[in-house]
C-alpha cells in the first residue's frame, strides 16, 4: 500500500507540466555537420579513433542502408523523416571520452544530479547496503561521459565500459559478438544504427560470475537536431548472471528527435541476463508537437542450453515507439520472458511487443504485456511467437491486456502465432476493457478522488510486470505510471 500511496502523492505534486526531465543542459557541444553520407560515417569512426575493421563494417552497413526502404507496416503515422536534416554526432566539448569523475564537466554532473542518477560512487555507498549498489554508464548525446565502479567490477572479472572503449580494450570480444544477434542488415533502423552508432555500453560477464552489482546505462539526449544511435552489447558467459537497467530522458523540444538504438544480448550455457528498461523519452506536448521518435531493435540470443533472457520494460515516453525486444531461443531448454507496460497519453503512438523464436528443444517463453491508452493516443501490441520444426516441446504463454481511458484513444492487439511443431504448446489470451465503473465507485466511496482511484486500479492492472523490476526501478516506474496518466480522467 505504501507504494500506491506514494504514487498518488506524486500525482498530487505534479502540476500541468508533466514531463520533469525536459530541461536543457547548457553545454558547448561538438557537432558533426548535418546530413548523412560516407564522410559522416568516417567522421564518427575517426572521432572514436576506431580500427579499420570497424570502419569497414560501418561503411558496409551504410552502403546497405542506402538500398533499404523505410518500413511502413507499423500502426505509427508520422511525417517523413528527413535523414539529412540531422546531426549524427554530438559530444560535449569538454569531454573527450570517458575519464575519471573529477575530470568530468561539472555542468554534466549537475545534469545527472538533476535527473537523479548517482554518478559519484561514494554517494551511492552512503547509507545504502552494499548489495543495492548500481554501476552507471552515463551516455550524453553521442558519447559516454563516465562509467562508475569500473575498478571494483574488474576485480570480479566483469567488463563494464562504453562500447567505444571496448573496441580498444577488448577488440576480440567486440569483434566476436558485434552484429551476431542483430546483423548489420537486419532492418532499416538497425542498419542505420550499424553505420552511425555512437556510444552505448559493453558488458562481459565471465563464466560462473554473478555480477556483484546492478549495471545500468543512462541515456540522455541534449543537443537539438541530433539523433541518438546507441549500441549496447551484453555477453553473459557460461553460468553467469547479470541484471542490467536502462533509463532514458530528453529535453522538451518542439522538433522531433530520432533515436534508433540496437541492443544485443548473448547468453551462453546456463547464463542469465535480466534487462530492464524504463523509457521516459520526451513524449511531445498534448498537441503532439515535438517528442522523440524511438525506433529500437533489441534482441537477445539464448545460445547456450538452459540460458535465460528476461526483458522488462516500462514505457511512458517518446512520441513514437517502435520496439520489439525479442528472444531467439536456440539453446536446448532455454527460456525467454517479456514483461511490458506501455502507457500512452496525449498524441503518443506505440507499436511495441516482442518476438519469441523457438528454435531449440524444450524452450519456454512467457509474455505479459499490459497496454494502457489514454488521451488521443494509439497503443498497439504486436508480437510474434513461433516454433521451428525442431522446437519439440516448446511452450509459450502469452497474456496481453489493454486498458482504455477516455473515448478518443485506441488499443490494438496483433499477435502472430506460428507453430510448426505439433508438440509445441502455445496459449495466447488478450483482453481489452475500460476501468470498471464498480471498481471506481468502490474506491471513490472510500474517499479517494477519481484520479487517485484510477492510479490505484492501474497499479493493480500492471502489478504483474512491476514485480519483475529491480527494486530501485519499481518505485520509479510506479511514479511514472501516475505521471503519464495524469490528466486522463474526466
Amino acid at each position, binding site marked *: 500500500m505504501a507504494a500506491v500511496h506514494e504514487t498518488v502523492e506524486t500525482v498530487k505534486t505534479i502540476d500541468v507540466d508533466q514531463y520533469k526531465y525536459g530541461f536543457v543542459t547548457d553545454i558547448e557541444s561538438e557537432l558533426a555537420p548535418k546530413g548523412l553520407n560516407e564522410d559522416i560515417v568516417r567522421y564518427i569512426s575517426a572521432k572514436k579513433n576506431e580500427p579499420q575493421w570497424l570502419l569497414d563494417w560501418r561503411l558496409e552497413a551504410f552502403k546497405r542502408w*542506402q*538500398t*533499404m*526502404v*523505410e518500413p511502413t*507496416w507499423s500502426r505509427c503515422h508520422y511525417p517523413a523523416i528527413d*535523414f539529412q536534416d540531422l546531426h549524427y554526432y554530438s559530444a560535449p566539448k569538454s569531454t573527450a571520452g570517458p575519464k575519471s569523475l573529477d575530470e568530468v564537466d561539472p555542468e554534466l554532473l549537475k545534469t545527472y544530479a538533476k535527473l537523479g542518477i548517482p554518478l559519484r560512487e561514494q554517494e551511492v555507498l552512503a547509507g545504502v547496503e552494499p548489495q543495492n549498489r548500481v554501476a552507471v554508464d552515463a551516455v550524453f548525446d553521442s558519447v559516454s561521459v563516465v562509467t562508475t565502479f569500473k575498478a571494483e567490477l574488474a576485480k570480479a572479472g566483469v567488463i563494464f565500459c562504453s562500447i567505444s572503449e571496448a573496441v580498444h580494450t577488448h577488440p576480440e570480444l567486440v569483434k566476436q559478438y558485434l552484429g551476431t544477434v542483430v546483423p548489420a542488415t537486419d532492418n532499416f533502423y538497425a542498419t542505420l544504427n550499424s553505420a552511425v552508432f555512437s556510444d552505448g555500453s559493453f558488458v562481459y560477464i565471465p563464466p560462473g560470475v554473478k555480477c556483484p552489482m546492478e549495471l545500468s546505462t543512462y541515456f540522455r539526449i541534449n543537443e537539438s537536431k541530433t539523433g541518438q544511435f546507441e549500441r549496447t552489447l551484453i555477453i553473459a558467459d557460461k553460468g553467469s548472471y547479470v541484471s542490467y537497467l536502462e533509463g532514458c530522458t530528453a529535453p522538451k523540444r518542439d522538433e522531433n528527435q530520432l533515436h534508433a538504438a540496437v541492443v544485443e544480448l548473448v547468453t551462453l550455457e546456463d547464463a542469465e541476463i535480466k534487462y530492464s528498461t524504463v523509457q521516459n523519452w520526451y513524449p511531445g506536448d498534448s498537441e503532439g508537437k515535438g517528442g522523440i521518435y524511438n525506433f529500437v531493435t533489441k534482441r537477445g540470443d539464448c545460445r547456450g542450453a538452459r540460458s535465460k533472457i528476461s526483458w522488462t520494460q516500462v514505457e511512458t515516453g517518446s512520441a513514437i515507439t517502435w520496439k520489439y525486444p525479442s528472444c531467439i531461443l536456440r539453446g536446448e531448454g532455454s527460456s525467454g520472458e517479456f514483461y511490458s507496460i506501455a502507457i500512452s497519453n496525449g498524441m503518443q503512438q506505440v507499436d511495441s511487443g516482442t518476438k519469441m523464436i523457438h528454435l531449440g528443444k524444450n524452450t519456454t517463453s512467457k509474455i505479459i504485456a499490459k497496454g494502457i491508452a489514454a488521451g488521443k493516443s494509439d497503443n498497439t501490441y504486436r508480437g510474434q511467437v513461433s516454433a521451428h*520444426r525442431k522446437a519439440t516441446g516448446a511452450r509459450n504463454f502469452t497474456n496481453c491486456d*489493454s486498458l*482504455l*481511458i*477516455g*473515448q*478518443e*484513444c*485506441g*488499443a*490494438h*492487439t*496483433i*499477435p*502472430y*502465432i*506460428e*507453430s*510448426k*511443431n*505439433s*508438440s*509445441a*504448446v*502455445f*496459449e*495466447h*489470451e*488478450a*483482453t*481489452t*476493457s*475500460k476501468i470498471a465503473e464498480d471498481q471506481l465507485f468502490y474506491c471513490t466511496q472510500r474517499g479517494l478522488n477519481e484520479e487517485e482511484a484510477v492510479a490505484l486500479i492501474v497499479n493493480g492492472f500492471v502489478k504483474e510486470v512491476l514485480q519483475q523490476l529491480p527494486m530501485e526501478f519499481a518505485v520509479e516506474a510506479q511514479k511514472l505510471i501516475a505521471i503519464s496518466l495524469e490528466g486522463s480522467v474526466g
Partner: protein
Amino acid sequence: MPAPVIQMRTPAETALIERFEREKSSLPGAKDARAAAFARFEKAGLPGRRVESYHYTDIRNLMRSVAPEVPVEGELIHSQHVGVEGIPVVTFANGRLQSASGMIGAAKLEQLDAALLAGAAELGTALGAANDAIVDINTAFASKGAFISVPAGEKASLHLAFVDHHDSAFAVHSRVVVSVGAGAEVLLYESHEGPDNLPYQANKVVELLISEGAKVQHIRLNISGNKALALSTLAASLGADAELMSLGFTSGAETSRHQVFITYAGENAKLDLRGTTMIRGRQHADTTLVVDHAVPHGESRELFKTVVDGEAQGVFQGKIIVRPHAQKTDGQMASNALLLSDEAGMSNKPELEIFADDVVCAHGATCGALDENQLFYLMARGLPRADAEALLVEAFLDEALDAVTHEGLREALAERVHVWLSARKVA
C-alpha cells in the same frame, strides 16, 4: 532514398487484365462497381506475402495462370451426396444457377445477370468498409450466380449446391446476393464440390443483407476437389437486432481461403461465427475474418477449430474492429488448433483493433497436440490409439458444430468428421 520496389506483373495478372479488357463490355450490369474493383486490382495486383492480410497465403505465388470459365456440358454428377433431407436444393453448375427464376418456398430466386441488369441486385452492398483483392476480382468478373430474396416475416430454407465440373483446368467466379427481409428466418446451406486431381480455381462470394430482427443460419461446406484453389468470401451486414450464425466447414481443396467480412449496420445485432477445418496431406487452409463493429451494442462470438494432419498448414486470421462510437461492444474470439502430426503447422493471428473505451473484447488462441493424459485415459479403457485420437478430435470439433440447429444438417456434418477421421485411421 531509393525508389520503392515495383513488382513485375505475373502471367496470371496479365491474363486477368487482358480478360477484363475483352469482356468488360459484355459483363452484365454493375458497370461502375466492376470498373472500380478492377482498377483497385490493376493497381495492387494479386495479393502476395507482402500484403499483411495475405502473409500466410500467397495468392500471387499460388495463382500461376488463369484458366477459362466454361459452361457445364451434359449431365451433372453429384458425387458427394451433400443433400440433407428437408432442405430444398438448387444447383449451381460451374457457378450458373441451373433452375429457372422462380419461388422455392418463400424465397424468390433470380439469375444474377438478370437481377443485375434489371437493377434488382447490386454488388458489394454487404461489404461495408471491407476492401479485399479477392472480392475485387470477383466483383469485376462475376456474371453467374443468383439473387435470392426472402420477404419480411417469412421463413425459408435453401441448399445452394455448387457443383464444379470440367475435364481440364477451369475457373469459376460466382456471386450470390441474399436479401433477408425484416424479421425473416432463413437457413442457408451452401455446399461446394468439384473434381479431384484437376487444378481448378474458384472465387465465390456470397453477400448477405440481413434486415432488422431477421435470423439467419448459414452453413458452408467446402469439399472441393483435391487440386482446387478455392477462394470464398461471405460478406454480411447485420441490421438492428439481427442474428447471424455462420459456420464454415472445410476439408476439401488443395489450397483454400475462406474470408468472412461482417459489418454491423444496426444496434444490438448478434453474431456467432464458427469454423471447423480438417486438413491433411499437403493441404493449406486459411480462414480470415474481419468483424467490424461500426455501431454500439453489438455482440460477436467467434469459435474456430482447426485440425491439421500430415504436412498440412492451417491459418487463422481474425480481426475485431471496434469503431470510435461503437460503445458497449462485446466481442469474444477463440481459435483452437490441434496438430496431429510432426510436420503439421498452424499460424494464428487474432487481432483486436479498438477505438472505443467502453467495450469488452477478448481473444484467445491455442495450438498444440492431443493431450497425452486424455489419450492414456481412453487407451487404458481398451480403445486402440487411433480410436482414442478420433474420439478426442470429434469432441474437439463438436463444440463448434453444436451451433447448427438443423438436426439433419448437424448430423450430416458430424458424419463428415467421422468419415475424415476413418480415412485417417486406414492411412
